[in-house]
């Protein structure tokens, strides 16, 4: 986006002051302005809020903040000396010595304090720098601009262009995208990768545009960027996750300090509605896949039924009880480092075992639910994510069970007698082939059981989320990425 407005002319030589009436230091300096107006090279005062201020010297109206923006004013008053169009000196706030040196005059502001700090420039009020950059500067944004008529509803315009997942999106104006990009230290034009299914080139800027549309705050952007990078890992097999007739979509689990810093929910209703970060980060990823990658339902997305989480499902793990390592640490990320893990998962199945008080009983109980994932008579090779609620986790905690011990117990509980699962058994055609008779099978593939913790303190509840029928090396595997800045 290139600059379109001719810059407001400023003097090539002399003194300029940027001030505002709302600043006590600026108003205190009326007699100084009068004295400086006698400077041979001339004095120009730019007023940010009231062109009738100051009284002692006529001001130039800078209520649109163009001069303030171009001179990168952060504090008012700021005194600048120009020579042949170049700035040769600047004094910020009021300091008699500095002002006298810059002005080449002695005895300025007789009776005023030696020093008094100024106030914030209106050009750096929250949200204003991005507005000024779009109006007066070169934003360095490269995305194609789409004009929407003044009488048209821009949210409806986004729907009409096919940019929405079915819910309203926040219209991605240049100002909003610039504000979003403040959330990352990365260059807007840095390449993130090629987004499936179309393998379309994707930059940080394109991710930011879609994050705006999803409703993200700028501080969520590093999580979204890490999630996009995770989805591009061939291990995750996003193209397959997208085009399968199965139910799955990417589910995001966030670990580490960023979860608290951006206010994510790992507690009550963690997988439900009501938290902005949870609701928008996963959505932003799905919008990147839809808009940049071209992955739309009914086209490449062939899911027979889908699942509600495909709008975007993201939650933080509850790391409040450190007796088990956080999920990300289990997956090789250093302690204290923020990370996001992507899991190709379907809708959740609840397990509300209210009576198990021993880890042995609870493990067998949860395993009964896990056996039903996909189909009760289908094995082996499934993936599962257990989102273990607080009170269920307390059963393992009270017994002092480690994660390894728990995993071992699940492995045994999920070892099944094939004879019970053969085709036709129980009057159900689905099942294992006859050649499996007499054998045992594992419901879950090696490494396919994942336990994360989330949920409120009350309720003996856990959620089981089945993975893609094609999991692991033959399909999608979990991918964990560190979250950068």
């Amino acid at each position: 986006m290139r600059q379109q407005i001719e810059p407001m002319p400023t003097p090539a030589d002399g003194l300029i002051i940027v001030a505002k009436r709302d600043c006590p230091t600026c108003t205190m300096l009326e007699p100084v302005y009068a004295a400086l107006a006698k400077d041979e090279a001339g004095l120009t005062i730019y007023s940010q809020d009231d062109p009738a201020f100051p009284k002692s010297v006529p001001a130039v109206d800078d209520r649109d903040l163009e001069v303030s923006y171009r001179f990168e004013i952060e504090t008012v008053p700021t005194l600048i000396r120009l020579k042949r169009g170049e700035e040769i000196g600047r004094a910020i706030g009021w300091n008699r010595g500095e002002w006298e040196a810059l002005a080449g005059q002695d005895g300025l502001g007789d009776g005023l304090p030696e020093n008094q700090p100024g106030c914030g420039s209106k050009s750096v009020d929250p949200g204003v720098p991005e507005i000024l950059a779009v109006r007066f500067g070169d934003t360095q944004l490269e995305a194609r601009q789409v004009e929407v008529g003044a009488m048209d509803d821009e949210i409806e315009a986004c729907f009409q262009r096919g940019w929405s997942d079915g819910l309203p999106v926040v219209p991605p104006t240049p100002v909003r995208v610039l504000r979003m990009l403040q959330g990352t230290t990365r260059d807007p034009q840095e390449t993130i990768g090629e987004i499936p299914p179309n393998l379309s080139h994707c930059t940080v800027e394109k991710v930011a545009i879609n994050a705006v549309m999803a409703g993200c705050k700028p501080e969520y952007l590093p999580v979204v960027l890490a999630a996009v990078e995770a989805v591009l890992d061939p291990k995750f097999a996003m193209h397959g996750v997208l085009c399968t007739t199965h139910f799955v979509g990417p589910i995001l689990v966030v670990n580490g300090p960023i979860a608290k810093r951006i206010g994510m929910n790992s507690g009550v209703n963690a997988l439900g509605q009501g938290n902005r970060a949870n609701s928008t980060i996963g959505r932003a990823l799905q919008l990147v896949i839809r808009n940049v990658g071209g992955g739309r339902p009914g086209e490449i997305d062939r899911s027979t039924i889908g699942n509600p989480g495909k709008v975007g499902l993201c939650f933080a793990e509850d790391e409040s009880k450190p007796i088990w390592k956080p999920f990300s640490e289990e997956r090789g990320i250093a302690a204290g480092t923020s990370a996001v893990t992507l899991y190709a998962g379907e809708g959740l199945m609840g397990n509300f075992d209210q009576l198990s008080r021993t880890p042995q009983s609870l493990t067998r109980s949860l395993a009964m639910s896990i056996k039903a994932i996909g189909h009760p008579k289908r094995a082996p090779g499934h993936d599962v994510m257990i989102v273990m609620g607080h009170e269920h986790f307390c059963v393992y905690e009270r017994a002092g069970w480690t994660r390894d011990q728990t995993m071992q117990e699940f492995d045994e509980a999920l070892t099944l007698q094939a004879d019970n699962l053969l085709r036709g058994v129980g009057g159900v055609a689905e099942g294992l082939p006859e050649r499996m008779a007499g054998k045992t099978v594992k419901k879950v593939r090696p490494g396919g059981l994942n336990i994360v913790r989330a949920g409120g303190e009350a309720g003996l509840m856990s959620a089981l989320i089945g993975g893609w029928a094609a999991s692991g090396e033959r399909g999608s595997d979990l991918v964990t990425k560190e979250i950068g800045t």
Partner: protein
Amino acid sequence: MSENVTLLDPTAETSPAMRERLAPPESLEGLVIGVLDIGKVRGDVFCDEISKLLGEKGFTVKQYAKPTNTRTAPTDLAQTIATECDVVVEALSD
């Protein structure tokens, strides 16, 4: 009046910036054709003739009329046409 709003394209920019029109069907064979009189003077004469000619060619034709040409079609009418027809001739006459 406010100014136009500028949005940044969230896509891979492989399609035109202008919204693409729906591609017309390759054939009208077996399709239900709606004929919408938008309410301009003598539009009914024009629409009746169009419907007659299409009917003579063996097409299934349904006729509709907007209450007034000065406003967009009522939602109920638009939904009825969308439900009952595959294509529509929106007739203008003056």
